[in-house]
């Protein structure tokens, strides 16, 4: 054990000082959702498949088929099922993380 412990005095620490040093997340990280309004057809399969009722799709125009998505970050599990379920690939997951906030209302965001 000594041969492991002693040399590590002179090695770079394995820990990362997180808030000061942002780690690089993996390429296919499942972070905050991103919504592409132009692709959405309003089928609402994502709403039906979401395990935690985190996402909702609203129609915002009376005349045209334009939709907006609202996601509740406090409920979202970041499982990515909605991106798999979406038939038009309107949803995708970004690398954005650290989404905490001080109140619940701020966690309900339009994406």
């Amino acid at each position, binding site marked *: 054990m000594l041969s492991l412990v002693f040399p590590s005095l002179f090695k770079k620490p394995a820990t990362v000082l997180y808030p000061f040093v942002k780690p690089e997340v*993996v*390429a296919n990280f499942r972070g905050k959702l991103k919504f592409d309004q132009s692709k959405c057809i309003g089928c609402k399969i994502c709403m039906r498949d979401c395990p935690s009722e985190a996402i909702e799709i609203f129609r915002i125009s009376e005349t045209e088929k334009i939709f907006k998505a609202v996601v509740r970050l406090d409920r979202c*599990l970041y499982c990515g099922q909605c991106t798999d379920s979406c038939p038009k690939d309107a949803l995708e997951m970004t690398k954005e993380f650290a989404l905490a906030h001080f109140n619940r209302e701020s966690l309900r965001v339009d994406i």
Partner: protein
Amino acid sequence: MSKRVIIPLGPQHPALKEPESFTLYLEGERVAASNVTLGYNHRGIEKACEERSYIQCLYLLERVCGICSHSHTTAFITAAEEVAQLEIPKRAKYIRTLIGELERVHSHLLWVGVAAHEIGFDTLFMYSWRDREVVMDILAMLTGNRVQYSINTLGGVRRDVSDSQKEEILKAIDILEERTKYYIDVVTTETTMMGRLKNVGGLTHEIATKLNALGPLARASGVDRDIRRDDPYLVYDEIPFNVITNDGCDVFGRVVVRALELIESYRIIRYVVKNMPDGDLTVKAPRKLPANEATVRYEAPRGEDLHYVRGNGTEKPERVKLRAPTMANLASISYMLDGGYLADVPIVIAAIDPCFSCTDRAISIKQIDSGREGTLEWNNLRTYSIEWYKNHGFDAHKIKLSR
């Protein structure tokens, strides 16, 4: 004036990472008897599953336990696919096996750290967790997350493994194998560790069989039971591997079993990576599953994980039943604690690698003091303990500990 001291260990205690309660009846430093109370983590998951579609259940069951999340989803999804009579592609099976074995590596390395921490050896804890980051990074690279992999879906897997990722895996496995061999060396030569692990928490072969112990706990008592070989699922019937058993019957034996299982897991991972066939990742799965039933046993890192699924022709399952390995090993805990030292309680509890979230998904336990032969009355056990004590040259009645 009572001669025994009753020590609560939990629900909140530094030695326990999850809420559960052990009541220890102490005679000096010796544990005369113990009670286990669980239920603090009861979340009603089985009931909740009945009100969700199969896909939603999958993500719920993934959160039964953080560490064996892949075990629970794989067991559930295999059962669901059996209900639906789906044959998933070979490549998907290989990827599930790969993630499952990587999870076993991560779980066992985590356990080494926890066990070292329980006996006050924080340096080993820090180093084994540092090296665990290697496998965590691999899992994150493959699945997109460090803990909740979410790789299973009805009819296959969600992410593919590319050739460059395969190389990364093999590289990481080489590093891990070297590190694991080093830790085996440390654990088997470091005198303070040996002193703390040898002849602690004894569980003989007969008792282990009788109390239906499973997983590394049972294998360290010489019970040759491994679902991967006995009742193969996924592609384990194609993979050559050995089932590790040990006749130590103590905590040290459990360390050895887990350490050698790590080495076996590395072999399995290498085989899986090298022999992974090409093909599709998923087959088309129906949303409504027929009225049928299936029972699946899965060798999770901690032992046999059993899932029972019954469909009823709708989108939602009629009944989902899961039994986590810790649940079956609880009977052994009280047995192993009795007669040991207070100082050994944390390591003995840690030695079954308890996961109380899994266990508590729908259960709580008040275990009657289990004795040498079946169920001993508390008084008999206490008398037994006091006599044992006297025979070893120490009379508990002379200590005034409690007021």
